[in-house]
């Protein structure tokens, strides 16, 4: 009956008040979330945030201190790992070095008393899916990192689990291969329709692949949403800084104008869409992504929100864009990315500049947030 769970339990992954403590330290702290069936879900966070511990609890490799884990209606909290409807792609792949690629992939199938012919059909099919049928008779150590990675995915998905867990699956690959594998993994997920739960510390990786991202910090989920939601409307400074870069400028809410809040930034009033504000009191952190700023020499015409009195303190040209550090009148620097898509001359260090941006690109956090939380 319990064995059936590995083939029959289907549905959303539900974590209820999941906690894992080591003495006084809570690696995962009262975490609750629902991963909808068929989605590509990413747990994103810095190392030590509890994301891998969460994944290992779902896989059954760690025992939760409290809380429960469901797949659909089935409670798998106390189930042995080998009875769970879950397969894992391990960090560094953990392929069996003594078995051929065929036997590696067939390992899970053979534990289920499937006929030899069915095993062969299933393995051949998945090898074709990952486009490596020629490797069936090789041993893992004869394969490149990218190939081993795909075999690790194949070995897991061939079992048609309800849930595929990926623990930093691309961490050992070089940048170019990583990009390629991101696209490939996303494609495989769409192709087979299994729920993927992907753990990573790489925000770009999470944003490229996942439908939904949960940003974790200190054992808790800071914010959960689509990549767009998290990037455009972060709710905490940690999310604002961990996903991309943000300029967070402290200010006072001074009024309201239709759908916008008016916030006073060191004497300059700027508009922030109310829908993107999570400020609870009067003090707020106004957030603007570096690429949303327009930068112009002092005296040029501007529109939208405007901040004057900046002085360029550093310029770096990086091809697609130019990155400026601009020292503002209140003594702090802001970061500006300007696309190199016009004939505007590059501004020199020391130039007096004015920054402007459209109000809709502004978000606001509560003033009590720590400005540098989650910075890289």
């Amino acid at each position, binding site marked *: 009956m319990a064995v059936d769970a590995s083939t029959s339990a289907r549905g959303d992954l539900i974590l209820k008040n999941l906690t894992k403590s080591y003495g006084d330290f809570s690696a995962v702290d009262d975490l609750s979330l629902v991963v909808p069936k068929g989605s590509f879900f990413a747990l994103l966070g810095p190392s030590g945030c509890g994301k891998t511990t969460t994944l290992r609890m779902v896989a059954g490799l760690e025992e939760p201190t409290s809380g429960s884990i469901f797949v659909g209606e089935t409670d798998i909290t106390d189930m042995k790992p080998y009875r769970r409807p879950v397969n894992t792609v*391990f960090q560094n792949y953990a392929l*069996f070095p*003594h078995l051929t690629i065929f036997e590696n992939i067939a390992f899970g199938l053979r*534990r289920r008393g499937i006929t030899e012919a069915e095993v062969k059909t299933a393995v051949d099919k998945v090898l074709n899916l990952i486009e490596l049928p020629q490797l069936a008779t090789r041993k893992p150590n004869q394969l490149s990192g990218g190939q081993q990675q795909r075999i690790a995915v194949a070995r897991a998905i061939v*079992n048609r689990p309800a849930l595929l867990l990926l623990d930093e699956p691309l961490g050992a690959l070089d940048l170019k291969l990583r990009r390629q594998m991101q696209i490939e993994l996303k494609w495989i997920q769409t192709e087979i329709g299994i729920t993927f739960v992907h753990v990573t510390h790489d925000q770009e990786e999470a944003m490229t692949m996942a439908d939904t991202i949960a940003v974790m910090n200190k054992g808790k989920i800071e914010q959960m949403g689509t990549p767009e939601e998290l990037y455009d409307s972060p709710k905490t400074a940690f999310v604002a800084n961990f996903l991309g870069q943000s300029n967070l400028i402290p200010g006072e809410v001074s009024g309201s104008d239709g759908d916008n809040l008016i916030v006073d930034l060191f004497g300059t009033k700027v508009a922030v869409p109310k829908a993107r504000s999570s400020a609870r009191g009067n003090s707020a952190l106004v957030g603007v992504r570096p690429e949303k700023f327009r930068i112009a020499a002092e005296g040029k015409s501007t529109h939208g929100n405007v901040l004057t009195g900046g002085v360029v303190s550093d310029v770096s040209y990086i091809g697609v864009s130019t990155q400026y550090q601009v020292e503002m009148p209140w003594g702090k620097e802001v970061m500006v990315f300007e696309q190199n898509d016009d004939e505007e001359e590059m501004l020199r260090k020391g130039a007096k500049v004015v920054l402007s941006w459209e109000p809709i690109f502004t978000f606001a956090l509560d003033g009590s947030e720590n400005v540098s939380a989650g910075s890289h």
Partner: protein
Amino acid sequence: MAAFRGASAKVFGLKDNKSALPYLLLIPGLLWLAIFFIVPIFSLGQMSTKVPGADIGEFVQEYRFSNYIDAFNSSKEQFLRSFLYGLLATIIALAIAYPLAYAIAFKSGKWKNILLVLVVAPFFVSFLLRTIAWKQILGEEGPVVSVLRTLNIISVNTSITSSAFAVVTGLAYNFLPFMTLPLYASLERIDPRTLEAAGDLYANGFTTFRKVTLPLSMPGVVAGTLLTFIPAAGDYINATILGSPSNKMLGNVIEARFFKIVDYPAAAALSFTLMAAILILITIYTKRTGTEELV
């Protein structure tokens, strides 16, 4: 350094200086082997076909290969016993050492280093002393006999020294570290994530052991059994100290022929036969276990 390299290249007639260094590093080892292994083996081989001369201790080369047949025929029983005792001792040592090595490699946590020191600790005492200690342990006043007698497993008149049991357990005890250390080394090298992966792929604890742990530890099993079996089969100290005359092994026969009877040719022929037999056995064994295919 350059001059040194140039010289070595001349010695070996090699044009590429870099490739000479590894050969140079081989020289001490090769010299050692030549002086202390090849030369003695050669003289042992010569001795094995000689016949006694006029005086005691004088032998004449007559290429009498029937020495081998005579020597073998006269000690068939001890020959078989050597292999049987060696095999039993190896099996016992493996049965004790595998769980031990497994526990040290996977379950010992902070105690790992202390346990490893304890495994090696017997080496601080000489082989001979350890065997005598084993005689004490199994002896009349020792704890083993008194426990067995109290439990009525053996009768008051039965003793367990001077028996095959004492010799075999003595061999297993003496060579246990040789079994444990290679086993530990190969188990310790296993990535624990491959074991987790097996569990993740529906293998229960026993299947994981059978399909992943055991195959991955085979190099250690083979190394450990060879390091135990080879010296155990050729040993004579355990049989001398712990056995009765009916437990004599081939090592005892060779020892007696060399030092007591002064029949060097027979002793040499027996030594060669033992070596050849062990060599054939381990060749079959390593071929069968297919260790060359393991990573």
